[in-house]
């Protein structure tokens, strides 16, 4: 019985089902007596299937997240948290301070500096790696010799663990002995302080992150290209559309749903891209390449005294910024008729 009930509630595919779901929820709600039992009977398969994920995420993210938000409202630091010194147990003595940390952050010039650089970093990384990924995907989508080989080589950066590649880049960037400077030297150009000059370091970390990010874009967009029916291009060609027109009016619209997901995810990932910056420059020189995440990390692990409340407040700010971005982004997609 239950099986049939559910079957009717699962129309072909998933995307256009929002109205259906709303109706479903309403009918469940009107039958108040035994509503929970009925819902259980109808949905227990689904709930059982998502339960492991919800439990794991709830425990591992939920608690730390709740605790992080709580800490962000206190003045906890190294000196007043609960701790053990030898056999002595020292209870926590920090106080609830409300939104003080947040007002302090908003007034802090450092925050706006870091936010500006984080936005620059995210936008340039996502935009350039998307553009490069798209360009290469279009090239690879043609009939060419050695296509499979090119594809394997181009997505290789993805196969190498990120911290290994970052390490390789550090070898290349090394000011005295790195190969980049040796090559420039051969051309009569003085050694370039790739990671030691504020502006160049910014350029370098962005370059490395783009290098790391292109394969993901390439693979996703290549797949998207392959799902565009070839007949569309042939028809357009017969109508005399130029290559640029074909790209503009067939390729780009055909890639829209792939791109929207890919851009959303890689924006979130890049915004919080801790390893690249931390392993490449440690945020330096000075704090010129420090993004919000690495700065928050520095507050709680590097600086002394370790400022747990401040770091948590920075973390909450990051979360709020990304949530706002995701909401706006999703809304603008919805206007174009795409829902997830």
């Amino acid at each position, binding site marked *: 019985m239950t099986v049939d009930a559910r079957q009717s509630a699962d129309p072909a*595919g998933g995307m256009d089902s929002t109205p259906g779901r709303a109706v479903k929820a309403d009918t469940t709600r009107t039958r108040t007596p035994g509503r929970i039992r009925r819902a259980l009977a109808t949905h227990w398969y689904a709930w059982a299937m998502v339960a*492991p994920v919800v439990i794991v995420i709830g425990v*591992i993210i939920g608690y730390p997240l709740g605790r992080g938000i709580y800490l962000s409202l206190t003045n906890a630091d190294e000196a007043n948290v609960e701790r053990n010194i030898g056999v002595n147990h020292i209870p926590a003595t920090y106080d609830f301070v409300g939104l003080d940390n947040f007002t302090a952050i908003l007034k802090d010039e450092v925050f706006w500096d870091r936010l500006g650089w984080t936005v620059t970093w995210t936008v340039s990384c996502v935009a350039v790696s998307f553009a490069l990924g798209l360009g290469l995907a279009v090239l690879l989508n043609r009939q*060419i010799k050695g296509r499979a080989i090119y594809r394997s080589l181009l997505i290789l950066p993805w196969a190498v*663990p990120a911290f290994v590649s970052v390490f390789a880049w550090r070898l290349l960037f090394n000011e005295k002995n790195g190969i980049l400077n040796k090559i420039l030297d051969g051309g009569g150009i003085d050694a370039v302080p790739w990671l030691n000059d504020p502006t160049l370091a910014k350029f370098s970390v962005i370059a490395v992150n783009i290098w790391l990010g292109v394969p993901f874009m390439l693979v996703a967009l290549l797949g998207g290209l392959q799902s565009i029916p070839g007949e569309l291009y042939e028809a357009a060609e017969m109508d005399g559309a130029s290559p640029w027109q074909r790209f503009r009016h067939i390729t780009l619209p055909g890639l829209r749903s792939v791109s929207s*997901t890919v851009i959303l995810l890689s924006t979130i990932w890049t915004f*919080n891209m801790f390893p690249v910056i931390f392993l490449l420059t440690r945020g330096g020189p000075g704090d010129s390449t420090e993004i919000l995440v690495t700065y928050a990390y520095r507050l709680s692990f590097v600086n002394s005294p370790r400022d747990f409340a401040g770091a948590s407040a920075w973390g909450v700010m990051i979360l709020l910024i990304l949530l706002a971005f995701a909401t706006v982004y999703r809304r603008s997609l919805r206007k174009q008729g795409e829902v997830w």
Partner: protein
Amino acid sequence: MAATKTRSQRNRRSPLASFGLHLTLLIASAVAVFPPLWLLVTSFKPKSEAFSTDIVKDPTLTNYRYVLNDTEFLTWLGNSLFVVAITTVLGVFIAATTGYAVSRFRFPGMRPLMWLLLVTQMFPMAILIVPLYNIMSTLGWLNQPISLIVTYLTVAVPFCAWMMKGFFDTIPVEIDESGRVDGLNPFGTFWRLIVPLARPGLAVTAFYTFITAWAEVAYASAFMTGEQNLTLAAGLQTFVNQYSSNWGAMTAAAVMIAVPAALVFSWAQRHLVAGLTAGATKS
């Protein structure tokens, strides 16, 4: 007739265009391959020449011998393999069930779940480390592989579940229906009919989970304190602190860490394009 004509027209490319195409792809491939390749070359150089830019003058295996014999490399490898294997198997399984449930059933809490999967990727993990460390120590899981397995699952599963949902969306619902007509319950349908069809998606998910767990440094260094408990990625970091920046050993170890990843990658690669797109298009 007309169709074949246009197709042949598209294939006929001027030699110049063809040259440009290959040149672009060659340059791009070179840029993609060069850094890891340089690492490989460096790993064969004797310690004193780690930074010299010559191609290896007298290739040596000293670095590899040192890493294998004089460090805990093999212990770390064992730890890594254990953690990664369990993470991958569990991660693929729960990502698949979640993806399937979200793709096929309309149930209360589905939309919040999709948001939850997205939001978990937003909170900076750098901030989560301290509270997580406290949980792990309360549970007595520090220095236990389970702490890493559970943590890596939360990192990898949200994206994988999204991807699997998109993939299941491309499998026709009629297949589920035919299974139910034959008397299978939803679990049976999922396990016997859908999972076999979803193999490309599963391969992508497996690769993603693998590489997440294989390459993770921060949690592994935070939760594993004893040197014999470290994973490869965390162990590699000790070369810089402890052995006064032994770059030669580090390159050799990095190569040995990258090789298994590359092998898994080449296995999953055949499925990569199909699997990821499905995820990206529909999710």
